[in-house]
């Protein structure tokens, strides 16, 4: 991982069931999008100062629905 690497954030809609861990942990990156609490991402490329939060969200999703990969 180099300092200049950019990371893209996404949600796998097939997996997300609305636990809401991601927007609780990283409200700058995720928000609920419907009544069930399914999540949507607010940014595509993660700002550097939010990268740790993004990783927390990935690790905390019980369904493995949060995806962070190199852009």
């Amino acid at each position, binding site marked *: 991982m180099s300092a200049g690497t950019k990371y893209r954030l996404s949600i796998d809609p097939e997996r997300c069931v*609305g636990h*809401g861990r991601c927007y609780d942990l990283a409200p700058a990156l995720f928000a609920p999008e*419907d*009544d069930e*609490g399914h999540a949507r991402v607010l940014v595509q490329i993660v700002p550097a100062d939010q990268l740790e939060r993004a990783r*927390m969200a990935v690790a*905390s*999703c*019980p369904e493995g629905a949060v995806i962070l990969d190199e852009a």
Partner: protein
Amino acid sequence: VEANPPRHAWLRKLVAKALSPQAVATYEERIREHVIELIERLAARGACDLVPEFAFPVPAKMMFHPPLLGHPLPVEGDWIAVFQGWVHDLKTNPAKSAQAGKMILAYLERLLADRDAHPQDDIPSELLEVVRSGGDLNRQEALGIMFVLFMGGIETPANAIGLLLLHFAHHPEDVERLRANPDEIPSAIEELLRFYGPSQGVRRTLTEDVCLHGQTLSKGEPVWLLLNGADRDELEFEHAQEIRFDRHPNRHLGFGAGPHRCIGSHLARLLLRVITQELVDRAPRFRLQDGAQLRWGMGVSRSLETLPVVFERP
């Protein structure tokens, strides 16, 4: 509860709006007011039983208010205490259990009849509207949904609150820790849900053959998923038997998982957060009364029946 998609998804939608993260956020102020009022009253009295006097009334008042089950109908005596009696018998008294279930259903039927005549901005009125307009729902099913909301929205959170308070009564150092660092409260709640999740297991019927650890389970068989067991799994949680408020990640199954995940989880989290915030702030010192006997309910849900405490002056 055991219905499968797509009907299940459609049934969930009927109640999801009032339990959505956005809707739940609008209940916070009202819940906080009630929690503060109760804590101050009980702490001023110096001693109380936190299960009937706090853990049960907080979610009961929340559920029996628009837009959830709506305003309660009059019953003889204090409605919260009456409901408590029914739920108590349902859980702990096999002889009275069937009768208690009937009392709850009869009450909910009366509530439906009331909303028939006087629609309100609540879930029973909305369910009736679906039934009336020829939607894929009959009155009996509407009653079933209300029963699930009654039990899942009052009894289960009351159990979760009771277990949380029991932990705090035993561990004043944890209360102090959260008082000094309130930002840690949300992650502490996740950890307490992992460790003390009231729903110990859920029943499912297999939709296909499964091979698990060399055992074949056949399609159509009923199975129990032990959520509490999974939540103490060392393969997932390092030092699973220890409570670590800063545990991360914490993919606990306190609310289950998949399409049947607890629909009230957003509301339950809010309740537990507000309670913890106000408690550590306003009445941080309480302990079990001397010689107190803890009594546990029977059944699937881990439930503390009584939690007699004394508050110490700060």
